[in-house]
């Protein structure tokens, strides 16, 4: 098997009810529930993205609780994350404000090499849009973030943003298979190595 597999830790952050768990469910199982209960906790899931050149990237995804009450626990889950998807709901400007707070916190406290993607979810509800594409994109460019709009419901843009993140990550770590397969412990070992291959959040904001 000549294919290389890389493993990265990804954390989802954002205001309650912007669709973090739905986005993961769409990405991991290609499913959507109209009624999902609020996440009170943090779920761990994995999904593998195949890049064009026979390289696969396995995401170890932490889907966290959005409620303010549990905000203090978030650092435990984004600690050592290689990438973060910060979600807002395009039908609510307040959620973009919250996303900005998360991004500021990540820039201050997370690993400096973290790749951050700002994601406007619920693009299927464009009729009720409160956040314009321009506004969000401008902010993302200023902060050097990746940006995209997604719809967990229709699936639009979901796999694209994860693939874009996978392409953006420094693929210099030894393949995960060499470390004896999956598992969170093995994943962490890879993360430490990645830290050294530090890449600042990209200047070229991706719009996919």
């Amino acid at each position, binding site marked *: 098997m000549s294919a290389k597999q890389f493993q990265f830790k990804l954390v989802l952050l954002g205001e309650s009810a912007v669709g973090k768990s739905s986005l993961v*469910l769409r990405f*991991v*199982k290609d499913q959507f529930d109209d009624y999902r209960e609020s996440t*009170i906790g*943090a*779920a*761990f899931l994995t999904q593998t993205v195949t890049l064009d050149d026979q390289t696969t990237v396995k995401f170890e995804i932490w889907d966290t609780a959005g409620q303010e009450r*549990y905000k203090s*626990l978030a650092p*435990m889950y984004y600690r050592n994350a290689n990438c973060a998807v910060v979600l807002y709901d395009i039908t609510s400007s307040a959620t973009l404000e919250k996303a900005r707070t998360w991004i500021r916190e990540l820039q201050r406290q997370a690993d400096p090499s973290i790749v951050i993607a700002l994601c406007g979810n619920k693009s299927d509800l464009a009729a009720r849009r409160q956040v314009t594409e321009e506004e969000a994109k401008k902010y993302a460019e200023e902060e050097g973030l990746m940006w995209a709009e997604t719809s967990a419901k229709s699936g639009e843009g979901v796999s694209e943003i994860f693939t874009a993140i996978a392409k953006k990550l420094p693929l210099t770590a030894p393949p995960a298979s060499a470390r004896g397969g999956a598992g969170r412990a093995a994943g962490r070992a890879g993360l430490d190595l990645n830290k050294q291959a530090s890449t600042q959040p990209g200047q070229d904001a991706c719009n996919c």
Partner: protein
Amino acid sequence: MAALDTSIKALLRPSDEVKAVLEALVLPSQHESGTPDRSPESRSQLEDARNKRILAVVSHSEAPDAQEEGSVFILKSKPIERAFDQSDILRVFPVFGDFSISMSQVRRETLDLRSSSQASPSLLSLTITQGGIDSVAPLTLCTQHVEALRNVLAECKRLKEVADVPPSTAAPPLVTFSWLAPYTARRAPMPALSAPQDLRVARKPLHTRLSRAFAGDAGDDASDVVRIRDAWLRARVRETCSTGTHELRVRIGTFNVNGNLPSQDLSSWLGTSAPSAKTAFIPPLAEVSPFSVAEPAGDPFEDPAGEKELAAAKKEVAPAEKTADADPDTSPDLLVLGFQELDLSTEALIYAASAAREDAWCGAVFAALGERAGLYEKLASKQLVGMLSVVLVKKALRGCFGDVRTCAAGTGIMGLMGNKGGTAVRLVFTPPVAVSTDSKENTDTDTTEDVEEKETRGSTVLTFVNAHLAAFDEMVERRNADFHELARKLRFDLGAAVQEAGAAAVPVTCNVFESDVLFWMVNLNYRIDVPDADVRVMLGEEGWEGRFEVLLKYDQLKSSMRAGKAFDMFDEGRITHLPTYRFNPGLLRDDMGYDLKRRPAWTDRVLYSASAAARVEQLSYAGHPLITMSDHRPVSAEFVVSVDVFDRAAAEAAAEKFYAQLNGLEDAHEDTNARVNLKIVDPLVGLGKVSYGKGVSRRVGIRNVGKVPCAYRLVPVDGESAVHPDWLKVEPMTALLLPDELAYITLTTYIDNASAARLNIDHKALECTLILHTVMGKDHFIAVTAEYVPTCFANSLGRLTRLPGPIRALAAPADLLAENRAINAPREIMRLVNWLMGPNINLDNLFVSAADETMVDAIRECLDTGAEFTFSPDPKNESAPVAFGETLLRLLNSLTEPIVPVELQPRCVDMTSRDEAFEMLDAFPPAAVNVWISVTAFLHYVCQSSAEPETKTKEIASVFAPVLLRDAEHAVSPVGRRHFLMYFIS
């Protein structure tokens, strides 16, 4: 067929259903060639159980409206009474894609196959082809059951049609057959549960044995799930299979004989009738080995203190010890005796021990048993130089003890020699059927059944270690090391005795901790860390209630156990006897008979440890001062050991059944299943108002809404934190839930002095988030809130004197009085003292009787709120003053610093007169002086009001000195502290 259906159902998970079942045969020749058209060559092939197969059509549905998926299972046939387990599943054919099943008539080549019988049903053959991409050879079976085969074919046809119809919903089809994974995955073999777990592991709470984990870092889920699973299996099997308990009476004795031969009657040690001087035992000297020619009996020196010693000893004969006397029912079933320093000669170290001394001591033991000697026989013994273990058993029970093993290990000179070390005996006890008085079900079975039943009776492993650890006061670390060394070296060779069917993995040796019940009878040589003179003074103070408890706080063994350095997995009964060391008749002695060269100590101890499969109740623990032949006094301890009665075969069957229920537990839920398995019924828990001493409890429901069993554990936020704050107790910290099971976690507030001291300062709103980690799955948060109500307990004296009113009325720390405006003494202490010194107060039982806890709570509440006491003085009411006294004592003890500052205590204990003591008060902080004067004045008043002021003074000083002169480090002499207080109250 119905029974078969049921037993297959037991194998399946609740989401899966048996649709059709068929008994069939596989014929080896056909199996290989794959040709379906040859009939079996002989009748024997038809009869051979190994060729029998069960074919089951199973269907699975995630939800009522979800698409049905089907599969054909091929199972090994088995006797009807044995449940199917996963290893019986030979093949699984999912019904989809190219799956096919076809039947044909078997051509008969041997016409006389069933010549004698009447027209037999024709043999039909059926071929199943695997669907999907795998090109696996089709499987061919044959059967005679036409009707059942018809059902199977119909069901397969239906499921095939369902699978072929594209789903109507917009969502992409998810025909993954992932539900089959748990059936086809190679499961680890069931853990062997019959061998006892190492007590050092089993005695630790399960959650402390799990991997290190915290939020965002699940630790080693794979090993955790196995630990949780095994604990669950053990507990479940025990719960369901125990049919009662059997009580075994065990008397343990330990005696360092200092090289002597028996020269006195040992009956008091053995719990037989009290000795009479006339029948003192004379040992059989003739058979003593030439290497051990020490003076066996008597004392060649004049013994000036002998009379005194004996008098003291007689007074100390433990009244608590109930001697079994002639009543055979209460006499011990097992007598286990550990001797040390049996032979002190240097030759004993070099040459193999002769049995002469063992014989002499065993002879003395049987002689001391008197009339009951005939009831017992020697079951086992083991000697290593001076150490000897002897186990005597009641003859009637001899047959219940099997697989007797012994071992020994030296830790003495060069870490090898047997002058120090241990000997051990391991017994496997199988309770007798007829005598199981507590048994709920087996009482009316007849004798023949009893005999059969005994064959499969479950047994319990009992281990007895006799050890002798390093001597000398300062060698405590060496003794701890000796313990661990012994623990490592003492190993029983089990040989092939436990090689039961299916237990091939049992090791051929085991350590002493791999037992259900473990006793250590030890000449530990652990000493008491109190100055020599103090020890002697305290031991002589018979009126000093609790003097043993005070001294035991300084006991090296107890502190090693507390610190987890050695023996931390053991329990010990309460010591109410005098130290058993040392009485050297050749040396000068104190009034108690202890020689002056060694600090008296409890060197001879009996410790025990038991797994959940047995309970140990200690009936007595005593020293035997009348047996004076050695420099040690013998110690005895009597126990009732209650062991579970269960049927081994039933336990094994239950274990298999429970293990089957855990199918899917070890699967990683997150990768295959994005759904939630555990659901917290209400993740927001409000505990309301919480206050000191009173626990508030709430239950949090957790339901397993998934299709597979699921385990959880609580984890801390990060590596530095605890799982929960100190003001909260959480139980259980880990558990396993079957599908649909609802379990509860109980949260109880727990405000003790340590947490109150911190919370009193400023924490009114308490909150925390508990992180419940689903093993192999997600983290759940449980948010807990409570409102803390402050108390006057656990404050500093300084803070209490700066309170402008009752502590509950204090709104903010800024409202505290300025330091220069502080009141003289805490009003809470003064209120208690004033009430107690009021008229019509019955002070007789103050600090003696146990207080009524509700009353203590009510009094404390009044102090906290400033409300009037609701108890009016009444000379007939004894309980109210007792409760007030107790509240005062506890309040003083809860202060964050003792009344007498720690740094002044060494000076206080040096005071030699009343005047000096009073001068000491000048050094106290002002508030402390005021409290000291009020409290000691009150205590003086209590003593003077007593009928026996002198005794009362000593009693009260013993109670209050450790509180007023609290000393967490145990650095100051307990005798000195008591003396200092006595200057003020006598």
